[in-house]
């Protein structure tokens, strides 16, 4: 199936041409967000926030034909405990 993938900020350094528009990719049915990231030439730990059709999804989310995926490095933050927001 075909999906569209956009990467942002410093992730663009790893994919030539990424700033010119979305990459159209062919992936097998049932591919998850996590598996998609593994296929991309980006350091997986930098794929911090992933949107599928404008909604944030985790790595086990299963992609569908025609999905639009946006992948962001930590442009703000990580997985901290948020301890002070009481």
């Amino acid at each position, binding site marked *: 199936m075909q999906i569209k993938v956009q990467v942002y900020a410093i992730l663009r350094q790893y994919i030539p041409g990424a700033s010119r528009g979305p990459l159209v990719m062919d992936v097998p049915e049932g591919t998850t967000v996590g598996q998609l990231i593994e296929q991309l030439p980006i350091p997986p730990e930098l794929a911090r926030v992933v949107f599928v059709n404008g909604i944030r999804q985790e790595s086990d989310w299963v992609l569908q034909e025609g999905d639009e995926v946006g992948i962001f*490095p930590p442009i703000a933050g990580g997985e*901290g405990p948020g301890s002070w927001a009481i």
Partner: protein
Amino acid sequence: MAKLLRVNMTDLSVRFEDVPEKYALLGGRGLTSSIIYDEVPPLCHPLGPDNKLVIAPGIVSGTKAPTSGRTSFGGKSPLTGGIKESNAGGLSSQKIARLGIKAIIVEGQPKEKGRFYVLRVDKDGARLLPADHLKGKGMYEVCDLLWKEHGEGVAIIGIGPAGEMLMSAAGICVNDQENTAGRYAGRGGLGAVMGSKGLKAIVIDDRGGPGVEIKNPELFEQGIKKLTQASLTHDVTKKGGALNTYGTNVLVNIMNEAGGYPTRNFSSGRFELASQISGETKAEIIHKRNGEGMTGHPCHPGCIIQCSDRWANPDGTFKVSVMEYESVWALGANCGIGDLDKIADLIWLCNDIGVDTIEMGDTIAVAMEAGLLPFGDADGAIRLLNEEVRHGTPLGRILGNGCVFTGRAFGVTRVPAVKGQGMPAYEPRAVKGIGVTYATSTMGADHTAGYTIAPEILGVGGKADPFAVQKADLSRAFQATTAFIDSTGYCLFDAFCVLDIPEGFEGMVESCAGVLGVNWTTQDAIRLGYEIIRKERLFNEAAGFTRAHDRLPDFMTKEPLPPHNTVFDVPPEELDAVYDFSKWPKEVVGEVAG
């Protein structure tokens, strides 16, 4: 011993006073809001003699604590009619603090209308000087002239023609190290309050000043070490991290992806030209033009995050600072404009005339909705600012009073504002928590008041579903903690690293406790934040605000927003829970009396 500087514009006198015990542990917003609460009658006219403009550096400002040069400006807002604190970077905070001044209180009003003055503050005291030669001048020229008269390097706080004309969108400008007029306490019309006092500018020369007393140097050092460590390691705040590399405008793509990037007067959550105005594109152009532009610029000495920038023209000459997220959005996407050079022109004009970029972006978009000019008409927008607002024509005065005033003048009902203040660059229909902050904050629609975007979109400080409506606790917690950070002098962008790295927040609190000579826990700091927002809330209630004012504009509850086609559906009870003192966390604040 630090002092308060009281400036009486009625009889043109200045006086230094001891700091009352009750203010000894306050700084920044905590201090401005407390003085307003104690001294300003809530029902006074914001532009009359009873309102006051209070200017305060933060608790650690003027020390070597990193990224701590924020100045808080407070007063009763002519835009919202409620209490206001708006803070800015630039040179002023550290210099005021190093002169041993905890706050400057400007009160009264000159008997002679249309006269303006400059307040000069230095190691020998303070003086009011005539400023007839600066009258009507834009902020770039004001900064040039004042450096010529008072020496290079002095801090300048000033207003442009908009502030002189008492426009409710007028902000207060602070110069930076390059003497560029670009750092603004923009929100809430405090520039008009300064104008109503007949004060065109304040010059602060800290040479020979006593510096800031640090009561417990050991604790202070330990604190700044922890905070510096957190700031330098966190992916967002470190050197080469997102803020340093792309500036705050790095948020364009993620907000657009999330469908929460308000476009064409809040009629869509996606802008088809977003990639042309994103932080990535901005940085690429600055580097390609390879002239006087730069990214990773500090807005004051000692900032280690350096999110600011200097934008260059196509020929490489310097144009404007700073192309930050809110300004680029307000005068870009929100007006349907997708050209960074045109947006730079518009920001330059706002900074010169002395109006808040967010409020003016909202206002021009409402004017576009009204049919005064089409969406996307950058040259038309430039004309409105340069020919109408700058010269105070009747149309310029309507626009200069903000988006609500303009909406009323032209019969527009889609006006994105709360308590009279235009919304910033996050769509509440796509990100519900920020809508709760807009609705309930003591400041009117203000993203910085409780930045729930961090967990809702960015995955900082935990994760929250942006579409979930149970956001009272989240928003309230952010509002209280922000009120504390706004009191320290630290830049709010430090919050990104302290949200994720608990030692960073400990360090922030310890550095404050070290300056003040107290033993504060992080819990004590948050309690102080709650006390501040409670005072602000009580001021607003006495000024006539009710729960009905804690609501988003009607259209947002009815018009679905593309691409997610959602409305703002947070129930009223959820909104009311934010400032229901009985629901405040007792383990932090104890029993709070209303």
